[in-house]
């Protein structure tokens, strides 16, 4: 029967049309769920940025850097490609950065004073293993407020027209 063949041909055409779309991205490594908590001066603190930089080379720009951001209870969940999707196994240096404002025209100050902000100098470490990971709680201390400079410095360098706000 012609019509039966017609239906089959249509199905084959539809299958061909749906196949072959989408470009494969770079290969992704296996991720494992990981979460933890940050305490600043004994208090759970929201808005602290947690980054896990590879212990072997904390400054590697193209490394996979699992990231998280603390919520009201101080807890965070790590993500690597997307928020909350987990972290690859390995040893990491952990950086904490508590910006006083969202990214924008002016650079943020670190309310932790930059003490934990760089992979090379941070005292914090973590290890991600296979399976569910609960990272030991990090305890940080808040920096003493830095003396306010003149208003020009607060807005960026004096020759900085982009420091417009």
């Amino acid at each position, binding site marked *: 029967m012609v019509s039966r063949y017609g239906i089959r041909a*249509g199905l084959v*055409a539809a299958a061909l049309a749906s196949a072959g779309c989408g470009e494969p991205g770079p290969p992704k490594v296996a991720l494992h769920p990981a979460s933890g908590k940050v305490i600043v001066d004994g208090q759970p603190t929201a808005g602290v940025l947690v980054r896990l930089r590879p212990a072997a080379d904390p400054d590697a720009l193209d490394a996979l850097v699992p990231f998280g951001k603390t919520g009201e209870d101080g807890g965070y969940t790590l993500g690597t490609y997307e928020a909350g999707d987990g972290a690859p196994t390995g040893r990491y240096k952990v950086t904490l950065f508590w910006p006083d404002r969202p*990214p924008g025209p002016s650079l*943020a100050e670190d309310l932790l004073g930059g003490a934990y902000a760089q992979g090379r100098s941070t005292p914090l470490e973590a290890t991600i293993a296979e399976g569910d990971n609960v990272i030991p709680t990090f305890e940080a201390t808040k920096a003493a407020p830095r003396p306010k400079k003149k*208003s020009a410095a607060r807005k960026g360098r004096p020759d900085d*027209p982009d420091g417009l*706000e």
Partner: protein
Amino acid sequence: MPRPSRRGFTLIELLVVIAIIAVLIALLLPAVQSAREAARRAQCSNNLKQIGIAFHNYLDVHNGFPATAVTLARNAASPNTQMQGGWCVQILPFIEQPAVSGAYNFNVGWYVLANQTAVRTVVPTYICPSSPRSMNPINYVPRYSGTAATPDPTIYAAAGDYFTARSFVDPWYPTNQQVEHIGVLDQTTFTPLSAVSDGLSNTLLAYECAGKPDYYERRRFVHGFPTPSSPNVIDRQWFHGPWASYMNMRITSSTGGQYEYDGPCVINCHNGWNGAYSFHPGGIDVLSCDGSVRFLKESTAKSVIRSYVSRAGGEIMDASQW
């Protein structure tokens, strides 16, 4: 009397024919849409090419690339309000817009009433046709009083989609530890070609951040303009995206949108502050200092983008990295 036999189509046959036609149309429509997008992208990269030629003609006249913004002697009390016109204004004579250039007064800011004739003019070279925003000028340009700014609904400005990169910043360290890889244009003075020691073809001049002031994250429309509740000042005031303004941003990565700090995503994450964003699938159009235009893929490694943005970083760029 026997009826003459008139064999017609059965219902099944008709349905099959209709189904086949439907499949063919379904195959064709995406192809048509992508052909239209390809045409828009061709025009978009042509705009960047024109901008590149204009930059080089400007260079021939002034012996340097323009500053990102013309600034007058600064008033110590209001250091950030003396910005008179961005690079788009300065290269106007070289993109065949001498009339708009003549209407612009560099003695006052782009945001004042006196410059409305020029600033409200839609300049097609500064707009990427893939950008879904309407062509009409947009109001709520800030009105300055000292350093304080209030959005003014009576002042309008036409939009632009092309930015220059002030620097590449990643990861995002605190102010006192910040490392910036400086981009080609200086903020206050001419940049001679000799300052671009990484090579003109290895240094970014301009790139796309399209669709402002509407805010998008990864192809998803998030909110329009103005959004007074937004914590980001550019969602409340129209000063970062009018072509006459300073069209200059840091490029940095994000874990998601414009409120997030460094993460895995640099290109086509969001079109807010520090975004690099287009409506082309897979990447953005970029203009190198030698005037060539190429496509920077979303998957480009951060180290390559950093080498490309920096004008004197001394990095080695391998063609296979693109």
